[in-house]
């Protein structure tokens, strides 16, 4: 082609780009969640598959329908962020969740959690957590129904006791009976190693389908840190704070407090700290800001678990800390050059 007559594309610099853009970042987070998905399928079988599929499909559909018919704007489902929100929501649900409840969760997560604020990047709260917390408040029974309906756990539990249909989490049990005569016995029961930390870590216990295996979540987290999608600051400060407080609480009153490993490994801490609190949109810009954010999440989680009405506090803690992100970003600024 003649150089002279060439019609050149004119753009604004810089003219080259870093390939890891929003789409790739979202895709990498989805990839990082695959070990947790695999563990969910292994432990909960087809029930988990159903929850995962309904979660992802309903979130994508919710975004597409709202954007097309309600907002009449361009569809953004190609950036994978709706799929990721759906996947995260699903991983935060019990295996027994009915399909319609998941759909309501997706609709709230996408519609109210994200699009109502102006779409990706504008939302102050983590959308998946908005969906989850709405379901937790709206359907408390269904959301804590850790029924053993199928998969590995069902077989295991039925071997022990053919009548077993539900298996509440240790945190849930203790909270349910706190203040009763039974409380100390229950704590004692769990603390005398009826469930060892290895099985909690690998994930052959009850809980939301995505939170059970800290091993799988750590694998995904390591991948994300390696790919520089997330920083280590929030997971480490969040989990570290929970570890310290739970240890302090245990040694202050070992008779009435669960061992720290239950606080670390039997709830939604790792899923929340690695995949939800690190959500770029809703976490601080700076290193120091992220440490403060992580510590705040940890403190609030433990306050809710130890003194609040809910057995689990990770979701609430992250949402509460989301509120502080703009303030953290105003007060914690990067160090300027030459100032």
């Amino acid at each position, binding site marked *: *082609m003649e*150089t*002279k007559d*060439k019609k*050149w*594309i*004119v*753009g*604004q*610099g*810089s*003219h*080259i*780009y*870093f390939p*890891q*853009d*929003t789409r790739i*970042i979202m895709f990498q987070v989805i990839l990082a969640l695959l070990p947790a998905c695999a563990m969910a399928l292994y432990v909960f079988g087809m029930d988990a598959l159903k929850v995962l599929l309904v979660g992802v499909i309903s979130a994508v559909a919710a975004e597409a329908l709202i954007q097309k018919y309600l907002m009449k704007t361009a569809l953004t489902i190609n*950036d994978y962020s709706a799929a990721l929100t759906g996947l995260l929501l699903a991983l935060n649900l019990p295996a027994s969740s009915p399909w319609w409840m998941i759909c309501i969760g997706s609709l709230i997560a996408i519609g109210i959690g994200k699009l109502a604020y102006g*779409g*990706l*990047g*504008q939302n102050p709260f983590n959308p998946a957590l908005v969906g989850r917390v709405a379901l937790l408040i709206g359907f408390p029974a269904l959301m804590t129904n850790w029924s053993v309906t199928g998969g590995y756990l069902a077989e295991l539990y039925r071997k022990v006791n053919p009548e077993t249909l539900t298996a509440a989490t240790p945190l849930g049990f203790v909270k349910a009976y706190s203040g009763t005569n039974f409380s100390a016995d229950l704590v004692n029961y769990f603390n005398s190693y009826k469930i060892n930390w290895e099985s909690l870590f690998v994930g052959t216990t009850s809980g939301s389908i995505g939170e059970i295996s800290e091993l799988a979540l750590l694998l995904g987290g390591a991948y994300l840190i390696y790919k520089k999608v997330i920083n280590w600051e929030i997971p480490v400060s969040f989990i570290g704070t929970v570890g310290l407080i739970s240890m302090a609480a245990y040694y202050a009153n070992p008779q009435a407090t669960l061992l720290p490993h239950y606080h670390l490994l039997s709830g939604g801490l790792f899923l929340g700290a690695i995949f939800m609190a690190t959500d*770029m*949109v*809703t*976490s*601080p*810009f*700076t290193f120091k800001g992220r440490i403060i954010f992580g510590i705040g999440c940890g403190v609030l989680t433990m306050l809710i678990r130890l003194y609040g009405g809910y057995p689990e506090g990770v979701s609430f803690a992250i949402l509460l800390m989301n509120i502080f992100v703009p303030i953290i*970003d105003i007060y914690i*600024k*990067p*160090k*300027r*050059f*030459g*100032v």
Partner: protein
Amino acid sequence: MASELKTFSQGGIHVDDRKYSHESPIEKLPASKLLVIPTSQHIGAPAKVVVAKDQAVKIGQIIAEKAGFISANIVSPASGVVKAIEARMSPTGFKQECIVIENDMKDEYFEAVTDIAPSPEAIEKYDPASAVKQVEKAGIVGMGGAAFPTSVKLSPPPDTKIDTIILNGVECEPYLTADARIMIEDADKIAAGLALIMKIFSKNGPVKGYIGIEANKPDSIQKMSEAAAKYKDIQVVSLALKYPQGGEKQLINAITGRSVPSGKLPGSVGCVVQNVATAAAIFDAAVNNKPLIERVVTVTGLGVKTPKNLLVRFGVMFTELIDYCGGITEDAAMLICGGPMMGKALQTSEVPVTKAVSGILVLNHSEANLYEEAPCIRCGRCVDVCPMGLQPGMINKVIEAGEYEKLEELAIMDCIECGSCNYICAGHERLVQKIKIGKIKLQEILKARKEKEAREKAKAETKAAPQDKPGESK
């Protein structure tokens, strides 16, 4: 060489350097018949035309004169006749006043030039008293791309104490290799140029000289080290590969550890920074009375068939350079004057090479950022990479909201427009473009505020004045 490579203290990006033309020796491109010379090839006021149509000119003759303190002379790069003085497209992307010269191909010089070889002896003998005048006459400006008039840089305010001269051989823009080749092929002249600059400043005390080169150019480092070894107090510093190390403030920080304060010039920390090609030009002008009539331009990118480094007379069209390199490929997409990070995209290749043109970059569809802007997801990478410690994402939001007065607190004027944030942005947002707009808007606000304050002060004085007059108010 130190085992740990030096670099600047904060921010920066690691970007694939894509120096395709590094091995390609500098080739001299024949001067063309018609040369188009813009009167504004530098930062500052455009030069004032001092020739008329049909006037005969010779090489080195001043055809447009420095107009104002920050400005530079424009000399004729060829002997011949002035064909026209008119507005033409320049590599800035705008039409500018240009002097069109028809080259008679005789290459006659306006003033006699000498051919003294660069050596410590030549510098020893040279009396630097007239050096700055020579540099000004030759029309030399910074050749790294910013094109700041060199004579101005060589004459800082009398109260500034300069103890360090740094030559910038970093060439941190990906793709560009002009400086790397000049260092390989003309190391002696660069070293002599540095020694000469040091001599200019040494009247106020001892001056140290450094040449900063990134470690991806081991051959340039070697040649420059050999040349520098002949001089006292000149040291070549290998730097770790990191963009934007060639930024003046970043380079000073990397080499000396000093930080130029916000809003201040390098002189405030005792430093003067010059590009390596500028140093060579300073030697030519000062010692040999040679005017600045040509420069080395890298023609590169996957959109050009054979990337090369060309020594080109000013005024030659980009088209000629590109065609000399085999022309463009089928999937060529973008034409950029300069490097990919800070260069400017052009609509046409029918613009002339000027003093500021360090490279002509033809990007193909796979290299060029052709993405639409997507929303900010607050990934915060722009904050991490900003070498000035700013918050580009936040600045962008403020600009989009039209809240320009907030830009003052966000220190937008500190931005060096290096494009690191733009490069790393997950939403492919054109942050630098918006920051440039924001800077203009903030300057307008600051100017209006100043004027208002001046008006109020004047008003207060006129009000106060009658009361001071005894008798009148009583």
